[in-house]
């Protein structure tokens, strides 16, 4: 158990180091001198040179890398080239927004997918199971942004129930916050729920075919009883895997929805910063995302151990 944990930790740290190298290196091969792009077309050469010097862009690359990593470790990624705004607080602000969106849509997706997925599995030979299954197939095929645009045109533009976009801080205006959260959450959650429900369905179907479930039925348990007592825990392992993947996808994939709904989240910050060649901001945001994804994977690994005792003993 401990060994396994340590293994996972080593993988986590190695991945972080490799990711930081890739992120740092990649930003340097993109076309466009960051100082020139940051200052714009009308900037004089002297100003560009001054900015390069000020931000140490003229130093050897390894020195720049170490300096950057040092900044990250002390949670101080520096200031932006042009706006001179501190990067750390910006990321913190944007992360809050994105987290609301991701958590809300994940929860909503689960709330929809769990019963629907179970229902589809249990009733897979009946008409309602088949219809739900077909619907979920459609849901998987619909991109979240399309769902978003349709939702906007129906609920915001035509019915005027909610605003078409924007963001307010929950503490300032709770009602406005929920109104603005509703459509983006829904557009993300519907698609995620469809994917999740299909995984739940197949996981549960697999379990239903297992010998131990037949044994449980033979003992005299009713189908649902047998499933709940012996099946769910086994079905949970693949579902948790998918959940972890989806959470990571959501965190990054929310950027499209952020654009459609004009939400100032982490993804928008990333896109804007890439266009402006705000190197330090891009690197910091990508690293935050990398850390998030790695941590999610780590947690998923831990969850396996919690769910499936066989993995625990296997490691010993």
């Amino acid at each position: 158990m401990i060994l396994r944990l340590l293994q996972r930790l080593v993988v986590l740290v190695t991945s972080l180091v490799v990711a930081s190298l890739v992120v740092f290196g990649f930003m340097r091969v993109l076309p466009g001198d960051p100082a020139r792009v940051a200052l714009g077309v009308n900037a004089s050469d002297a100003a560009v040179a001054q900015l390069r010097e000020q931000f140490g862009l003229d130093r050897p690359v390894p020195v720049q890398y170490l300096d950057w990593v040092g900044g990250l470790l002390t949670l101080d990624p520096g200031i932006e080239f042009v706006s001179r705004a501190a990067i750390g607080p910006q990321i913190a602000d944007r992360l809050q927004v994105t987290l609301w969106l991701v958590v809300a849509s994940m929860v909503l997706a689960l709330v929809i997918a769990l019963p629907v997925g179970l229902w589809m599995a249990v009733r897979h030979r009946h008409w309602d199971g088949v219809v739900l299954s077909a619907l979920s197939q459609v849901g998987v095929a619909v991109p979240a942004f399309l769902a978003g645009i349709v939702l906007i045109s129906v609920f915001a533009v035509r019915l005027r129930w909610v605003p078409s976009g924007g963001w307010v801080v929950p503490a300032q205006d709770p009602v406005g916050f929920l109104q603005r959260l509703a459509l983006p959450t829904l557009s993300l959650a519907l698609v995620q729920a469809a994917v999740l429900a299909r995984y739940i369905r197949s996981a549960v179907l697999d379990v239903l075919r297992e010998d131990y479930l037949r044994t449980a039925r033979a003992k005299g348990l009713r189908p649902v009883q047998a499933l709940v007592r012996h099946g769910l825990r086994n079905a949970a392992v693949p579902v948790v895997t998918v959940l972890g993947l989806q959470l990571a996808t959501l965190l990054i994939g929310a950027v499209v929805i952020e654009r459609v709904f004009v939400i100032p989240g982490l993804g928008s910050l990333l896109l804007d910063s890439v266009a402006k060649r705000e190197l330090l901001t891009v690197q910091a945001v990508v690293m935050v995302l990398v850390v998030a994804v790695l941590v999610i994977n780590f947690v998923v690994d831990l969850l396996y151990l919690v769910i499936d005792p066989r993995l625990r003993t296997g490691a010993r």
Partner: protein
Amino acid sequence: MMQRMTTSPRTRLLLATITTTALLAGCNAGAGSDPESTGSGTQGADGGTATDDGTGSTGSGTAAPGGSDETVRVGLVAEPASLDFTTTDGAAIPQLLLDNVYETLVTVDADSGEIVPALAEEWEVSEDRLTYTFTLKDGVTFSDGSEFTAEDAVFSLERVKSDAWTISLKAQLDVVDTVEAPDDGTVVITLSQPSNRFLYALTTRVGAMFDTEGVDDLANTPVGTGPYLFTDWQRGSRITLERNEDYHGDVPYFSDVEMHYFRDANALNNAMLTDAIDVVSTVQAPESLVEFEGGDYQIVEGTTNGEVVLSMNQTEGMPLADPLVRQAVRHAIDHQALMDTCWAGRGTLIGSMAPPTDPWYEDRTGDYPFDPEQAQSLLAEAGAEGTALRLRIPTLPYAVSCGTVVESMLEEAGFDVTVDELEFPSAWLETVFTSKDFDMSIVAHVEPRDMASVFGNPDYYTTYGTEEIQALLEEADTGTEEEQVSKMQEAAALISEDAAADFLFLLPNLMVADLDITGLPENAIKESFDLSSLARG
């Protein structure tokens, strides 16, 4: 003057938001292909009558005495990168701050295009046109409470010439020799040679008046004399201004102004349709205007300074160095059809580098009528049939939609055209603007009166700047006002005749607003979006 023209390449590029389709392409390709929007094509102007689509009423643009306690929400496409236009480029900053937070000694009247008093009550020009004496308005204070005096004006103008300003637009004041303050209410500016462009330059951002004590944190804390004060910036979404209750001029109608920034054209339209904003400052997708037709909204349609230029690389040895080939290009393009296809027919055909709002504007659209046969025979004469041309365009809405139209029209006339879309600004700047590795490109030059900066400099990416045009532009600048107009007309004619570039069309000023909003400028001819003229009623 010549020195100035050859060392100060400058342009204003029209940057625009991406449409949803562009957005998706951007996301598929990772985060790398998202165009920046530090600038905007339309720079609003003050005063002005708003053409009212629905009711036919027009607004006078004068604020109600005392003002109201209402808020106006303006939707824009380009968020500033910083609040400091002395070191940061981009049209979005003066659009927000000039005339609203900062003021200039003189300004341009949005209706007449004339230069009128602002912080200077009046001014005199000496006989030799080298000395300008400005009498400053009394009782003007900065937002930090200190008084605006001649000392501040001298400080501000000398600062432009110092290293504190880094944008190359500062070269507009290179002609200034000395700035002096004989007393608190008088500023005397001496030029090294007569210049017609000088007074106009003072109406732009280089003429902005700063407080001697208020320039420590320009990027975040602007201190000016204007009708509005900067209050809050929620990065990525909006900037808020509030009325300056101690303003020395007419009190603006709206007590608060919220500038909402949208990266996506559809999101901007949706915000207008759902009443989340009151004004759309620039309609980014002209075909979407139909959503606003039908009387619920007013649509303002006028002209801008944004010439959409099909630039041609005339560097020695390149295919377009041959004037015959360039002329063939101009004859090969059906401008009306092009504008109809790629910008929903909104815009103005110009034919040279002067918008209708410039004093020296002449209709030059007849110089190269659409004539594919003429184009083919010119090509044959040059021995250049089937010439391969690389059309390298920035990933901006107008460039992308016009690029394919230009491609097909040129192929029709016997060219072999390859279109490359380059990520804007980074990849485009490096490839086209800096390395000049292109044959043709499409960019809107939106700076006011930019004929000299775009076509008077052989080192600029347009690579034109012949000695003849430089001489004409120089004469226009140093001559009398009448000479300025006639020489600029000659210059525009020469640029057209030489086919220094092709002029696809002039971007329209397209605004949508609630029916009761008044004071929107019909023509966007200034760097600023004048908020003090807006009112509701």
